[in-house]
C-alpha cells in the first residue's frame, strides 16, 4: 500500500453550476426570465413581491417560494392570483439555509412554465449562503432594508457583489433611524459599482413603480437575448 497524490484542480461547485446551466436552458426554452430574489430574513422580500407580481405590464409572473419550513409566504402571495409553488428545504434535520440548483431542478415539474413569462425565486432569507449557489437565474436581485445598517455591503460582499439590483427597503423609516443612506450607497458602490439601486418602501409604496418597471425591463431584455 502506498500513497499517491492526484492533481485535480476542479471547482467544488462545478456540479451545482452544471445543474444551474441546465435549469437556465430549460427556462430559456420555455421563454421564462428567472429572478433569484435574496435578502436577510425580514428585509421585506415577500412584501415587495406582493406589491408588484400581479401587475407587471405584459409579464405574467410566477413565484417559487423557498423556505426552510412552512408555506406562510406562499399563502400570502396566492391571494394575488399568481401561480405560486412552494419549495421547502427541510428534508431531514435543520433544513438548508439556501436554495441550490438541484432543489430548483426538483421543483421544475411543478412549475407552470407555459403560463408564465417570469419566475421569481424567493430564496431563503440569508445573506451568506444563497450568494454561493447559482440556481439557473438570469438576474439577481437583493433587498437590503435600512434597519439592517449601512455597513452590510462590506460585511457580506459576496452577496452584494453578485447582484444586478439592490432594493433599499423600508425607506419610510429613515426619519426614525441613525442610518446613513449616502454611506450605504457609497458602500454598495465600493463593492459592486455596476449594481443598480432603487429606494423603496413596501409599506408606503414609494419607489414601487420603479421596481415594477425594472422587472418589466428585465423581461424585455431577456426576450431579446440581451442578458448574458
Amino acid at each position, binding site marked *: 500500500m*502506498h500513497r499517491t497524490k492526484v492533481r485535480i484542480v476542479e471547482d467544488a461547485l462545478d456540479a451545482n453550476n452544471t445543474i444551474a446551466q441546465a435549469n437556465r436552458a430549460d427556462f430559456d426554452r420555455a421563454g421564462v426570465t428567472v429572478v433569484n430574489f435574496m435578502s436577510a430574513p425580514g428585509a421585506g422580500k415577500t412584501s415587495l413581491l406582493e406589491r408588484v407580481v400581479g401587475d407587471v405590464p405584459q409579464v405574467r409572473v410566477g413565484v417559487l417560494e423557498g423556505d426552510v419550513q412552512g408555506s406562510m409566504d406562499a399563502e400570502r402571495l396566492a391571494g394575488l392570483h399568481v401561480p405560486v409553488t412552494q419549495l421547502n428545504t427541510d428534508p431531514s434535520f435543520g433544513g438548508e439555509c439556501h436554495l441550490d440548483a438541484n432543489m430548483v431542478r426538483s421543483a421544475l415539474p411543478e412549475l407552470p412554465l407555459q403560463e408564465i413569462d417570469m419566475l421569481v425565486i424567493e430564496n431563503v432569507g440569508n445573506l451568506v449562503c444563497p450568494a454561493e449557489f447559482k440556481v439557473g437565474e438570469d438576474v439577481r436581485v437583493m433587498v437590503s432594508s435600512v434597519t439592517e445598517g449601512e455597513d452590510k455591503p462590506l460585511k457580506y*460582499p459576496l452577496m452584494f457583489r453578485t447582484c444586478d439590483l439592490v432594493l433599499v427597503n423600508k425607506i419610510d423609516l429613515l426619519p426614525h433611524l441613525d442610518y446613513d443612506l449616502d454611506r450605504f450607497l457609497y458602500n454598495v458602490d465600493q463593492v459592486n*459599482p455596476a449594481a443598480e439601486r432603487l429606494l423603496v418602501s413596501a409599506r408606503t409604496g414609494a419607489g414601487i413603480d420603479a421596481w415594477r418597471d425594472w422587472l418589466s425591463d428585465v423581461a424585455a431584455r431577456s426576450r431579446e437575448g440581451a442578458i448574458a
Partner: protein
Amino acid sequence: MHELSLSGAVLNTVVKHAGDRRVSLVSLRVGRLRQVVPDTLEFYFEFVARGTLCEGARLELEVVEASLRCEECELEWEIEIPAFRCPTCGGAEVAVATGNEFEVESIEVEEAACIAQK
C-alpha cells in the same frame, strides 16, 4: 452554515476522482472572498465523509488572498477590505483576479502495491 453544503460539494468532487481508492488527504484552495470559515469546513467535512472513501481524510486548506484587476488601466492590486473600484483610474470594470477560488487542488489516495512488481 453554508460550510455544510460546501463540504458536501468537496466530498462529491473528491469521490468522483478517487475511483475506489481510499483518500487520506484533500488539498483545497479557498479564496478570501468566499466567506468560508476553515475550522467550520473541516468540522463538517469530517462529518459528511463518514462512511465514504474520505472517512478519516485530512482536509488541508490553502487560503488565496483577494486581488483585483482593472480592465481599463490593467492595474492589479491586493485588497484587504471589499472595495472594488480601481484606486488609480476609478474604473468600475474590475475583475476578481484571485480570491474567488473554491477548488479541490489535489487529493492523496492509497493504492494497492503495483501489480507489475510481482
